[in-house]
Protein backbone atom coordinates (compact mmCIF):
# COMPACT_ATOMS: atom_id res chain seq x y z
CA UNK A 1 0.00 0.00 0.00
CA UNK A 2 1.34 3.40 -0.97
CA UNK A 3 1.22 6.41 1.32
CA UNK A 4 1.18 9.99 0.01
CA UNK A 5 0.31 11.27 -3.41
CA UNK A 6 2.49 9.65 -5.96
CA UNK A 7 1.78 9.23 -9.62
CA UNK A 8 1.84 6.20 -11.88
CA UNK A 9 0.75 5.52 -15.43
CA UNK A 10 -0.99 2.67 -17.25
CA UNK A 11 -2.26 1.78 -20.74
CA UNK A 12 -5.57 0.60 -19.44
CA UNK A 13 -7.10 1.59 -16.14
CA UNK A 14 -10.07 -0.51 -15.08
CA UNK A 15 -12.23 0.86 -12.27
CA UNK A 16 -14.14 -1.80 -10.37
CA UNK A 17 -13.37 -5.54 -10.22
CA UNK A 18 -16.81 -7.05 -10.76
CA UNK A 19 -17.59 -9.46 -13.64
CA UNK A 20 -17.33 -6.49 -15.97
CA UNK A 21 -14.06 -5.06 -14.73
CA UNK A 22 -12.06 -8.15 -13.90
CA UNK A 23 -12.93 -9.79 -17.21
CA UNK A 24 -11.94 -6.64 -19.08
CA UNK A 25 -8.66 -6.51 -17.16
CA UNK A 26 -7.81 -10.16 -17.79
CA UNK A 27 -8.65 -9.87 -21.48
CA UNK A 28 -6.59 -6.71 -21.82
CA UNK A 29 -3.71 -8.47 -20.09
CA UNK A 30 -4.02 -11.41 -22.48
CA UNK A 31 -3.78 -8.96 -25.35
CA UNK A 32 -0.47 -7.71 -24.04
CA UNK A 33 -1.67 -4.39 -22.67
CA UNK A 34 -0.39 -2.84 -19.48
CA UNK A 35 -3.42 -2.96 -17.18
CA UNK A 36 -4.22 -1.64 -13.71
CA UNK A 37 -7.38 -2.73 -11.96
CA UNK A 38 -8.63 -0.59 -9.07
CA UNK A 39 -11.12 -1.99 -6.61
CA UNK A 40 -12.35 -0.33 -3.46
CA UNK A 41 -14.00 -3.29 -1.78
CA UNK A 42 -13.72 -6.90 -2.96
CA UNK A 43 -12.46 -8.69 -6.09
CA UNK A 44 -15.38 -10.21 -7.96
CA UNK A 45 -17.67 -7.26 -7.25
CA UNK A 46 -21.33 -7.59 -6.38
CA UNK A 47 -21.75 -10.75 -8.39
CA UNK A 48 -19.23 -12.98 -6.69
CA UNK A 49 -19.38 -11.48 -3.22
CA UNK A 50 -22.98 -10.43 -2.61
CA UNK A 51 -25.04 -11.38 -5.66
CA UNK A 52 -25.12 -14.17 -8.22
CA UNK A 53 -22.83 -16.61 -6.48
CA UNK A 54 -23.99 -16.39 -2.86
CA UNK A 55 -27.64 -16.38 -3.89
CA UNK A 56 -27.21 -19.41 -6.15
CA UNK A 57 -25.28 -21.26 -3.44
CA UNK A 58 -28.05 -20.65 -0.92
CA UNK A 59 -30.66 -21.65 -3.50
CA UNK A 60 -29.00 -25.01 -4.22
CA UNK A 61 -28.49 -25.77 -0.55
CA UNK A 62 -32.05 -24.86 0.44
CA UNK A 63 -33.43 -26.76 -2.57
CA UNK A 64 -31.55 -29.88 -1.53
CA UNK A 65 -32.88 -29.66 2.01
CA UNK A 66 -36.41 -28.98 0.80
CA UNK A 67 -36.44 -31.63 -1.93
CA UNK A 68 -35.12 -34.33 0.40
CA UNK A 69 -37.71 -33.32 2.96
CA UNK A 70 -40.51 -33.59 0.42
CA UNK A 71 -39.72 -36.85 -1.31
CA UNK A 72 -42.06 -39.24 0.49
CA UNK A 73 -43.55 -40.09 -2.89
CA UNK A 74 -40.12 -41.46 -3.84
CA UNK A 75 -39.96 -43.46 -0.64
CA UNK A 76 -37.48 -41.06 0.94
CA UNK A 77 -38.25 -40.10 4.52
CA UNK A 78 -36.00 -37.56 6.20
CA UNK A 79 -35.69 -35.99 9.59
CA UNK A 80 -33.93 -32.82 8.66
CA UNK A 81 -31.92 -30.37 10.68
CA UNK A 82 -30.53 -27.31 8.96
CA UNK A 83 -27.84 -25.21 10.56
CA UNK A 84 -28.22 -21.93 8.71
CA UNK A 85 -24.99 -20.50 10.08
CA UNK A 86 -23.08 -23.45 8.64
CA UNK A 87 -24.91 -23.09 5.34
CA UNK A 88 -23.79 -19.47 5.19
CA UNK A 89 -20.23 -20.52 6.06
CA UNK A 90 -20.25 -23.06 3.24
CA UNK A 91 -21.51 -20.35 0.91
CA UNK A 92 -18.73 -18.03 2.10
CA UNK A 93 -16.22 -20.76 1.34
CA UNK A 94 -17.49 -21.00 -2.24
CA UNK A 95 -17.28 -17.22 -2.55
CA UNK A 96 -13.74 -17.01 -1.27
CA UNK A 97 -12.59 -19.84 -3.51
CA UNK A 98 -13.94 -17.90 -6.49
CA UNK A 99 -12.73 -14.45 -5.48
CA UNK A 100 -9.31 -15.90 -4.68
CA UNK A 101 -9.38 -17.40 -8.17
CA UNK A 102 -10.16 -14.03 -9.71
CA UNK A 103 -7.20 -12.43 -7.97
CA UNK A 104 -4.89 -15.22 -9.14
CA UNK A 105 -6.18 -15.07 -12.72
CA UNK A 106 -5.66 -11.31 -12.81
CA UNK A 107 -2.08 -11.68 -11.64
CA UNK A 108 -1.40 -14.60 -13.98
CA UNK A 109 -2.51 -12.42 -16.87
CA UNK A 110 -0.23 -9.59 -15.81
CA UNK A 111 -2.88 -7.28 -14.34
CA UNK A 112 -1.64 -4.86 -11.63
CA UNK A 113 -4.09 -4.79 -8.75
CA UNK A 114 -4.63 -1.62 -6.78
CA UNK A 115 -6.85 -1.22 -3.74
CA UNK A 116 -8.73 2.03 -3.38
CA UNK A 117 -11.54 4.21 -4.63
CA UNK A 118 -10.98 5.91 -7.97
CA UNK A 119 -12.40 9.23 -9.08
CA UNK A 120 -11.63 11.14 -12.23
CA UNK A 121 -9.22 14.08 -11.93
CA UNK A 122 -9.53 14.85 -15.63
CA UNK A 123 -9.91 12.87 -18.84
CA UNK A 124 -6.39 11.45 -18.55
CA UNK A 125 -6.07 10.57 -14.88
CA UNK A 126 -7.82 9.41 -11.75
CA UNK A 127 -7.15 9.90 -8.09
CA UNK A 128 -7.16 6.64 -6.19
CA UNK A 129 -8.06 7.15 -2.55
CA UNK A 130 -6.78 4.27 -0.44
CA UNK A 131 -8.96 2.81 2.23
CA UNK A 132 -8.30 3.41 5.91
CA UNK A 133 -7.27 6.64 7.57
CA UNK A 134 -3.99 8.21 6.54
CA UNK A 135 -3.55 5.79 3.65
CA UNK A 136 -3.43 8.76 1.31
CA UNK A 137 -4.17 8.80 -2.36
CA UNK A 138 -2.39 8.45 -5.60
CA UNK A 139 -2.80 9.72 -9.13
CA UNK A 140 -2.91 7.24 -11.97
CA UNK A 141 -2.59 8.45 -15.53
CA UNK A 142 -4.16 6.33 -18.22
CA UNK A 143 -4.28 6.05 -21.99
CA UNK A 144 -7.64 4.28 -21.80
CA UNK A 145 -10.03 3.78 -18.94
CA UNK A 146 -12.82 1.25 -18.43
CA UNK A 147 -15.49 2.25 -15.93
CA UNK A 148 -17.10 -0.81 -14.36
CA UNK A 149 -18.33 0.44 -11.04
CA UNK A 150 -21.55 -1.56 -11.08
CA UNK A 151 -24.69 -0.79 -9.18
CA UNK A 152 -26.13 -0.59 -5.69
CA UNK A 153 -29.57 -1.49 -4.37
CA UNK A 154 -32.21 1.25 -4.51
CA UNK A 155 -33.33 2.40 -1.09
CA UNK A 156 -36.96 3.31 -0.53
CA UNK A 157 -37.12 6.58 1.43
CA UNK A 158 -37.57 5.72 5.07
CA UNK A 159 -36.28 2.19 4.54
CA UNK A 160 -32.56 2.77 4.91
CA UNK A 161 -30.68 -0.54 5.17
CA UNK A 162 -29.67 -1.02 8.78
CA UNK A 163 -28.71 -4.67 8.52
CA UNK A 164 -30.88 -5.49 11.49
CA UNK A 165 -34.49 -4.72 10.67
CA UNK A 166 -34.28 -3.54 7.09
CA UNK A 167 -32.02 -5.67 4.92
CA UNK A 168 -30.53 -5.39 1.47
CA UNK A 169 -30.12 -8.64 -0.49
CA UNK A 170 -26.47 -8.60 0.50
CA UNK A 171 -27.34 -8.43 4.18
CA UNK A 172 -30.06 -11.04 3.83
CA UNK A 173 -27.53 -13.44 2.35
CA UNK A 174 -25.23 -13.02 5.34
CA UNK A 175 -27.60 -13.60 8.27
CA UNK A 176 -26.59 -15.99 11.04
CA UNK A 177 -30.04 -17.46 11.39
CA UNK A 178 -33.12 -17.98 9.27
CA UNK A 179 -35.54 -15.26 10.33
CA UNK A 180 -38.72 -16.71 11.75
CA UNK A 181 -40.65 -14.39 9.48
CA UNK A 182 -39.71 -11.89 6.82
CA UNK A 183 -41.47 -9.30 4.67
CA UNK A 184 -39.92 -9.02 1.23
CA UNK A 185 -40.59 -5.74 -0.53
CA UNK A 186 -40.38 -6.36 -4.27
CA UNK A 187 -41.31 -9.46 -6.27
CA UNK A 188 -38.58 -9.03 -8.90
CA UNK A 189 -36.06 -11.78 -9.46
CA UNK A 190 -33.90 -11.03 -6.43
CA UNK A 191 -36.91 -10.86 -4.11
CA UNK A 192 -38.42 -14.04 -5.51
CA UNK A 193 -35.15 -16.00 -5.42
CA UNK A 194 -34.61 -15.14 -1.77
CA UNK A 195 -38.28 -15.66 -0.90
CA UNK A 196 -37.80 -19.23 -2.06
CA UNK A 197 -34.64 -19.74 0.00
CA UNK A 198 -36.22 -18.47 3.21
CA UNK A 199 -39.54 -20.26 2.70
CA UNK A 200 -37.79 -23.57 1.98
CA UNK A 201 -35.79 -23.19 5.17
CA UNK A 202 -38.94 -22.64 7.22
CA UNK A 203 -39.39 -18.86 7.32
CA UNK A 204 -42.84 -17.36 7.20
CA UNK A 205 -42.49 -15.21 4.08
CA UNK A 206 -44.71 -12.35 2.92
CA UNK A 207 -44.03 -10.59 -0.37
CA UNK A 208 -45.41 -7.12 -1.06
CA UNK A 209 -45.14 -5.76 -4.59
CA UNK A 210 -46.24 -2.46 -6.08
CA UNK A 211 -47.16 -3.92 -9.44
CA UNK A 212 -49.73 -6.64 -9.90
CA UNK A 213 -47.72 -9.82 -10.35
CA UNK A 214 -44.52 -11.65 -9.52
CA UNK A 215 -41.51 -11.12 -11.79
CA UNK A 216 -42.83 -8.04 -13.56
CA UNK A 217 -41.30 -7.83 -17.02
CA UNK A 218 -41.61 -11.56 -17.66
CA UNK A 219 -44.55 -12.91 -19.61
CA UNK A 220 -47.49 -14.03 -17.46
CA UNK A 221 -47.27 -17.68 -18.37
CA UNK A 222 -43.59 -17.78 -17.42
CA UNK A 223 -44.25 -16.20 -14.04
CA UNK A 224 -47.26 -18.40 -13.31
CA UNK A 225 -45.47 -21.66 -12.38
CA UNK A 226 -43.18 -19.65 -10.10
CA UNK A 227 -46.13 -18.05 -8.35
CA UNK A 228 -47.86 -21.41 -8.07
CA UNK A 229 -44.88 -23.05 -6.42
CA UNK A 230 -44.44 -20.05 -4.12
CA UNK A 231 -48.08 -20.41 -3.08
CA UNK A 232 -47.41 -24.07 -2.31
CA UNK A 233 -44.45 -23.02 -0.19
CA UNK A 234 -46.84 -20.86 1.82
CA UNK A 235 -45.46 -17.53 0.68
CA UNK A 236 -48.08 -14.80 1.11
CA UNK A 237 -48.46 -12.26 -1.70
CA UNK A 238 -49.88 -8.74 -1.63
CA UNK A 239 -49.87 -6.91 -4.92
CA UNK A 240 -50.48 -3.26 -5.67
CA UNK A 241 -48.87 -2.34 -2.35
CA UNK A 242 -46.27 0.41 -2.03
CA UNK A 243 -44.08 0.30 1.10
CA UNK A 244 -44.54 3.54 2.98
CA UNK A 245 -42.92 3.21 6.38
CA UNK A 246 -42.01 0.79 9.09
CA UNK A 247 -41.70 0.72 12.82
CA UNK A 248 -40.29 -1.60 15.44
CA UNK A 249 -42.87 -3.70 17.19
CA UNK A 250 -42.16 -6.30 19.82
CA UNK A 251 -39.28 -8.51 18.64
CA UNK A 252 -39.72 -7.41 15.06
CA UNK A 253 -41.13 -4.75 12.82
CA UNK A 254 -44.33 -3.69 11.12
CA UNK A 255 -44.19 -2.63 7.51
CA UNK A 256 -46.90 -0.25 6.40
CA UNK A 257 -47.99 -0.26 2.76
CA UNK A 258 -50.50 1.71 0.74
CA UNK A 259 -52.44 0.68 -2.35
CA UNK A 260 -53.33 3.06 -5.19
CA UNK A 261 -56.56 4.06 -3.47
CA UNK A 262 -54.61 5.11 -0.40
CA UNK A 263 -55.81 2.10 1.58
CA UNK A 264 -53.25 1.19 4.21
CA UNK A 265 -52.13 -2.36 5.19
CA UNK A 266 -49.70 -3.57 7.82
CA UNK A 267 -47.42 -6.59 7.71
CA UNK A 268 -45.57 -7.78 10.78
CA UNK A 269 -42.38 -9.83 10.66
CA UNK A 270 -39.02 -10.26 12.30
CA UNK A 271 -37.23 -8.50 9.45
CA UNK A 272 -37.81 -6.92 6.06
CA UNK A 273 -35.78 -7.36 2.89
CA UNK A 274 -36.06 -4.54 0.38
CA UNK A 275 -35.31 -5.63 -3.20
CA UNK A 276 -36.88 -3.07 -5.49
CA UNK A 277 -34.16 -2.73 -8.07
CA UNK A 278 -30.63 -1.42 -8.47
CA UNK A 279 -29.14 1.87 -9.59
CA UNK A 280 -25.82 2.63 -11.28
CA UNK A 281 -22.76 3.68 -9.26
CA UNK A 282 -21.66 6.65 -11.35
CA UNK A 283 -22.33 9.57 -9.05
CA UNK A 284 -19.22 9.01 -6.93
CA UNK A 285 -16.80 9.02 -9.85
CA UNK A 286 -16.61 12.75 -10.57
CA UNK A 287 -17.29 11.91 -14.17
CA UNK A 288 -17.72 15.60 -15.01
CA UNK A 289 -13.95 16.01 -14.58
CA UNK A 290 -13.53 13.59 -17.47
CA UNK A 291 -16.20 15.31 -19.52
CA UNK A 292 -18.71 12.48 -19.30
CA UNK A 293 -22.40 12.91 -18.55
CA UNK A 294 -24.87 10.34 -17.30
CA UNK A 295 -28.44 9.95 -18.51
CA UNK A 296 -31.48 10.82 -16.40
CA UNK A 297 -31.31 7.43 -14.67
CA UNK A 298 -27.63 7.84 -13.84
CA UNK A 299 -26.29 5.37 -16.44
CA UNK A 300 -23.26 6.13 -18.58
CA UNK A 301 -24.19 6.02 -22.27
CA UNK A 302 -22.06 3.92 -24.58
CA UNK A 303 -21.87 2.93 -28.22
CA UNK A 304 -21.57 -0.52 -29.81
CA UNK A 305 -17.90 -0.67 -28.86
CA UNK A 306 -18.62 0.18 -25.20
CA UNK A 307 -17.10 3.66 -25.68
CA UNK A 308 -18.44 6.68 -23.81
CA UNK A 309 -18.58 10.13 -25.36
CA UNK A 310 -14.83 10.23 -24.65
CA UNK A 311 -13.67 7.60 -27.00
CA UNK A 312 -10.72 6.45 -24.92
CA UNK A 313 -12.99 5.97 -21.89
CA UNK A 314 -15.24 2.92 -21.89
CA UNK A 315 -18.11 1.98 -19.61
CA UNK A 316 -19.36 -1.57 -19.10
CA UNK A 317 -21.70 -3.60 -16.94
CA UNK A 318 -24.39 -2.33 -14.62
CA UNK A 319 -23.13 1.26 -14.75
CA UNK A 320 -23.58 1.27 -18.53
CA UNK A 321 -27.26 0.35 -18.52
CA UNK A 322 -29.76 -2.46 -18.68
CA UNK A 323 -29.90 -5.39 -18.59
CA UNK A 324 -28.00 -5.42 -15.31
CA UNK A 325 -26.60 -8.91 -15.64
CA UNK A 326 -23.19 -10.34 -14.91
CA UNK A 327 -22.70 -11.95 -18.32
CA UNK A 328 -23.65 -8.74 -20.06
CA UNK A 329 -20.99 -6.99 -17.99
CA UNK A 330 -18.39 -9.63 -18.91
CA UNK A 331 -19.22 -9.49 -22.60
CA UNK A 332 -18.89 -5.72 -22.61
CA UNK A 333 -15.64 -6.06 -20.71
CA UNK A 334 -14.18 -8.39 -23.32
CA UNK A 335 -15.25 -6.11 -26.14
CA UNK A 336 -13.86 -2.99 -24.45
CA UNK A 337 -10.49 -4.67 -23.92
CA UNK A 338 -10.37 -5.94 -27.51
CA UNK A 339 -11.33 -2.58 -28.96
CA UNK A 340 -8.56 -0.91 -26.95
CA UNK A 341 -6.14 -3.51 -28.33
CA UNK A 342 -7.23 -2.58 -31.83
CA UNK A 343 -9.27 -5.69 -32.56
CA UNK A 344 -12.40 -5.49 -34.72
CA UNK A 345 -14.70 -6.35 -31.83
CA UNK A 346 -18.16 -4.99 -31.23
CA UNK A 347 -21.26 -5.64 -29.18
CA UNK A 348 -22.92 -7.34 -32.09
CA UNK A 349 -24.54 -10.27 -30.34
CA UNK A 350 -28.03 -11.09 -31.50
CA UNK A 351 -29.44 -12.02 -28.14
CA UNK A 352 -28.68 -11.60 -24.45
CA UNK A 353 -29.94 -14.53 -22.36
CA UNK A 354 -31.27 -14.11 -18.84
CA UNK A 355 -32.12 -16.54 -16.09
CA UNK A 356 -34.11 -16.41 -12.89
CA UNK A 357 -33.15 -19.06 -10.36
CA UNK A 358 -36.55 -19.44 -8.76
CA UNK A 359 -38.37 -22.77 -8.39
CA UNK A 360 -38.94 -23.52 -11.22
CA UNK A 361 -36.21 -21.62 -13.03
CA UNK A 362 -36.81 -19.26 -15.93
CA UNK A 363 -34.51 -18.84 -18.90
CA UNK A 364 -35.08 -16.45 -21.77
CA UNK A 365 -33.16 -15.36 -24.83
CA UNK A 366 -34.04 -13.21 -27.82
CA UNK A 367 -37.55 -12.12 -28.73
CA UNK A 368 -40.93 -12.95 -27.33
CA UNK A 369 -43.75 -13.49 -29.80
CA UNK A 370 -44.95 -9.95 -29.14
CA UNK A 371 -41.52 -8.47 -29.76
CA UNK A 372 -41.13 -10.47 -32.96
CA UNK A 373 -44.45 -9.14 -34.22
CA UNK A 374 -43.55 -5.59 -33.24
CA UNK A 375 -40.34 -5.92 -35.26
CA UNK A 376 -42.24 -6.99 -38.34
CA UNK A 377 -41.56 -10.72 -38.30
CA UNK A 378 -44.31 -13.27 -38.88
CA UNK A 379 -43.71 -15.37 -35.81
CA UNK A 380 -44.60 -19.01 -35.47
CA UNK A 381 -44.48 -20.36 -31.95
CA UNK A 382 -43.78 -23.88 -30.70
CA UNK A 383 -44.38 -25.08 -27.19
CA UNK A 384 -43.46 -28.23 -25.32
CA UNK A 385 -44.58 -28.99 -21.77
CA UNK A 386 -42.12 -30.71 -19.42
CA UNK A 387 -45.01 -33.00 -18.41
CA UNK A 388 -44.33 -34.76 -21.71
CA UNK A 389 -40.60 -35.10 -21.03
CA UNK A 390 -39.48 -38.48 -19.77
CA UNK A 391 -36.40 -36.99 -18.16
CA UNK A 392 -38.40 -34.32 -16.35
CA UNK A 393 -40.74 -36.94 -14.90
CA UNK A 394 -37.81 -39.03 -13.68
CA UNK A 395 -36.50 -36.06 -11.71
CA UNK A 396 -39.84 -35.32 -10.09
CA UNK A 397 -39.74 -31.80 -11.55
CA UNK A 398 -41.99 -31.64 -14.57
CA UNK A 399 -43.66 -28.25 -14.30
CA UNK A 400 -43.29 -25.62 -17.01
CA UNK A 401 -42.54 -25.62 -20.71
CA UNK A 402 -40.17 -24.65 -23.50
CA UNK A 403 -41.35 -22.10 -26.02
CA UNK A 404 -39.56 -21.14 -29.21
CA UNK A 405 -40.39 -18.13 -31.34
CA UNK A 406 -39.31 -18.29 -34.98
CA UNK A 407 -39.93 -16.40 -38.17
CA UNK A 408 -42.40 -18.49 -40.12
CA UNK A 409 -41.31 -17.73 -43.70
CA UNK A 410 -37.59 -18.23 -43.09
CA UNK A 411 -37.72 -20.58 -40.12
CA UNK A 412 -35.05 -18.58 -38.26
CA UNK A 413 -35.16 -18.93 -34.50
CA UNK A 414 -35.76 -15.49 -32.96
CA UNK A 415 -36.21 -16.21 -29.30
CA UNK A 416 -37.07 -18.70 -26.62
CA UNK A 417 -38.65 -18.73 -23.19
CA UNK A 418 -38.30 -21.61 -20.79
CA UNK A 419 -39.77 -22.12 -17.36
CA UNK A 420 -38.98 -25.41 -15.70
CA UNK A 421 -36.16 -27.66 -14.53
CA UNK A 422 -32.67 -26.46 -15.57
CA UNK A 423 -34.17 -23.65 -17.64
CA UNK A 424 -31.02 -21.63 -16.98
CA UNK A 425 -28.91 -24.32 -18.67
CA UNK A 426 -31.31 -25.27 -21.47
CA UNK A 427 -31.45 -21.71 -22.73
CA UNK A 428 -27.78 -21.97 -23.80
CA UNK A 429 -28.51 -24.13 -26.83
CA UNK A 430 -31.16 -21.66 -27.96
CA UNK A 431 -28.75 -18.79 -27.54
CA UNK A 432 -26.34 -20.56 -29.87
CA UNK A 433 -29.19 -21.29 -32.29
CA UNK A 434 -30.02 -17.59 -32.48
CA UNK A 435 -26.39 -16.51 -32.89
CA UNK A 436 -25.83 -19.12 -35.62
CA UNK A 437 -28.95 -18.20 -37.55
CA UNK A 438 -30.30 -21.69 -37.02
CA UNK A 439 -33.78 -22.57 -38.25
CA UNK A 440 -36.46 -24.62 -36.54
CA UNK A 441 -35.54 -27.43 -38.88
CA UNK A 442 -31.91 -27.30 -37.74
CA UNK A 443 -32.95 -27.64 -34.10
CA UNK A 444 -35.42 -30.39 -34.93
CA UNK A 445 -32.91 -32.33 -37.00
CA UNK A 446 -30.19 -32.25 -34.35
CA UNK A 447 -30.16 -35.52 -32.44
CA UNK A 448 -30.64 -34.93 -28.71
CA UNK A 449 -29.66 -37.51 -26.10
CA UNK A 450 -32.40 -39.56 -24.48
CA UNK A 451 -33.50 -39.16 -21.78
CA UNK A 452 -32.63 -35.50 -21.27
CA UNK A 453 -34.45 -32.24 -20.69
CA UNK A 454 -32.74 -30.88 -23.79
CA UNK A 455 -34.97 -33.14 -25.90
CA UNK A 456 -37.72 -30.69 -25.01
CA UNK A 457 -35.90 -28.04 -27.06
CA UNK A 458 -35.88 -30.33 -30.10
CA UNK A 459 -39.51 -31.33 -29.63
CA UNK A 460 -40.50 -27.70 -29.19
CA UNK A 461 -38.95 -26.89 -32.56
CA UNK A 462 -40.78 -29.87 -34.05
CA UNK A 463 -43.99 -28.61 -32.49
CA UNK A 464 -43.52 -25.24 -34.20
CA UNK A 465 -43.09 -27.17 -37.46
CA UNK A 466 -46.25 -29.16 -36.74
CA UNK A 467 -44.67 -32.54 -36.11
CA UNK A 468 -43.58 -33.02 -32.50
CA UNK A 469 -43.59 -36.67 -31.49
CA UNK A 470 -44.33 -36.44 -27.79
CA UNK A 471 -47.03 -33.79 -27.75
CA UNK A 472 -50.03 -33.01 -29.88
CA UNK A 473 -49.29 -30.41 -32.49
CA UNK A 474 -50.87 -27.05 -33.02
Amino acid sequence: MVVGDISTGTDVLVIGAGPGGYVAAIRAGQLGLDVTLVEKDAYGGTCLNYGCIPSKAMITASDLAYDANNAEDMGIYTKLDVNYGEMVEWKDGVVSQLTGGVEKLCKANGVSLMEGRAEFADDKSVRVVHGGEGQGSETVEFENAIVSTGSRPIEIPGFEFDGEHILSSRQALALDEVPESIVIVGAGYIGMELAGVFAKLGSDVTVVEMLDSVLPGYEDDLARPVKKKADELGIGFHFGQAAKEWEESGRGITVVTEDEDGEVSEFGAEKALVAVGRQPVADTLELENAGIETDEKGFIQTDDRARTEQEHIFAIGDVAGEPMLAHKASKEGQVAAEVIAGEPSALDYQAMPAAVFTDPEIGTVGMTQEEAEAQGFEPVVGKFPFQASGRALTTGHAEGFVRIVADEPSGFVLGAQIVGPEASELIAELGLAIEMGATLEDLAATVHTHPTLSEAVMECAENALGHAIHTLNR
Partner: protein
Amino acid sequence: VSEETETPEGRVFAAPSARRLARELGVDIVAVEGTGPSGRVTEHDVRTAAESGADEVEEEVGKIQPDDDLEIQPE
Protein backbone atom coordinates in the same frame (compact mmCIF):
# COMPACT_ATOMS: atom_id res chain seq x y z
CA VAL B 1 -11.95 -16.04 -43.85
CA SER B 2 -12.74 -16.82 -47.45
CA GLU B 3 -9.73 -18.99 -48.16
CA GLU B 4 -10.71 -22.52 -49.00
CA THR B 5 -10.05 -25.10 -46.36
CA GLU B 6 -9.62 -28.70 -47.33
CA THR B 7 -11.81 -30.95 -45.23
CA PRO B 8 -10.83 -34.57 -44.92
CA GLU B 9 -12.96 -37.50 -46.05
CA GLY B 10 -15.51 -35.40 -47.90
CA ARG B 11 -16.93 -34.04 -44.68
CA VAL B 12 -19.19 -31.11 -45.46
CA PHE B 13 -19.89 -28.40 -42.93
CA ALA B 14 -23.47 -27.35 -43.53
CA ALA B 15 -26.55 -26.95 -41.38
CA PRO B 16 -29.12 -29.78 -41.44
CA SER B 17 -31.51 -27.52 -43.33
CA ALA B 18 -28.94 -26.97 -46.07
CA ARG B 19 -28.21 -30.69 -46.29
CA ARG B 20 -31.87 -31.48 -46.62
CA LEU B 21 -32.37 -28.79 -49.22
CA ALA B 22 -29.55 -30.31 -51.23
CA ARG B 23 -31.32 -33.66 -51.28
CA GLU B 24 -34.59 -32.00 -52.17
CA LEU B 25 -33.01 -30.18 -55.10
CA GLY B 26 -30.94 -33.16 -56.13
CA VAL B 27 -27.65 -31.42 -55.48
CA ASP B 28 -24.57 -33.33 -54.34
CA ILE B 29 -23.61 -31.16 -51.38
CA VAL B 30 -20.07 -32.50 -51.28
CA ALA B 31 -19.43 -30.71 -54.55
CA VAL B 32 -21.01 -27.41 -53.52
CA GLU B 33 -18.68 -24.50 -52.87
CA GLY B 34 -19.33 -23.03 -49.44
CA THR B 35 -19.32 -19.26 -48.98
CA GLY B 36 -20.06 -19.25 -45.26
CA PRO B 37 -17.48 -18.77 -42.50
CA SER B 38 -14.51 -21.13 -43.02
CA GLY B 39 -16.26 -22.41 -46.16
CA ARG B 40 -19.48 -23.54 -44.50
CA VAL B 41 -22.10 -24.46 -47.11
CA THR B 42 -25.24 -22.35 -46.76
CA GLU B 43 -28.73 -22.87 -48.15
CA HIS B 44 -27.97 -20.07 -50.55
CA ASP B 45 -24.92 -21.96 -51.84
CA VAL B 46 -27.07 -25.03 -52.39
CA ARG B 47 -29.66 -23.06 -54.35
CA THR B 48 -26.97 -21.43 -56.46
CA ALA B 49 -25.52 -24.84 -57.26
CA ALA B 50 -28.97 -26.14 -58.16
CA GLU B 51 -29.63 -23.21 -60.49
CA SER B 52 -26.29 -23.56 -62.21
CA GLY B 53 -27.47 -27.05 -63.05
CA ALA B 54 -24.22 -28.62 -61.93
CA ASP B 55 -23.88 -31.45 -59.48
CA GLU B 56 -27.01 -33.28 -60.56
CA VAL B 57 -27.29 -36.65 -58.93
CA GLU B 58 -29.00 -39.52 -60.66
CA GLU B 59 -31.02 -40.42 -57.62
CA GLU B 60 -33.85 -38.01 -56.95
CA VAL B 61 -34.77 -39.19 -53.50
CA GLY B 62 -37.28 -36.40 -53.13
CA LYS B 63 -39.53 -38.12 -55.59
CA ILE B 64 -39.62 -41.67 -54.29
CA GLN B 65 -43.15 -42.82 -53.70
CA PRO B 66 -43.97 -45.70 -51.40
CA ASP B 67 -45.32 -47.73 -54.28
CA ASP B 68 -42.61 -46.86 -56.77
CA ASP B 69 -41.14 -50.05 -58.08
CA LEU B 70 -38.07 -48.36 -59.45
CA GLU B 71 -34.91 -50.05 -58.23
CA ILE B 72 -32.80 -47.99 -55.90
CA GLN B 73 -29.57 -49.48 -54.75
CA PRO B 74 -28.48 -48.75 -51.22
CA GLU B 75 -25.18 -46.92 -51.51
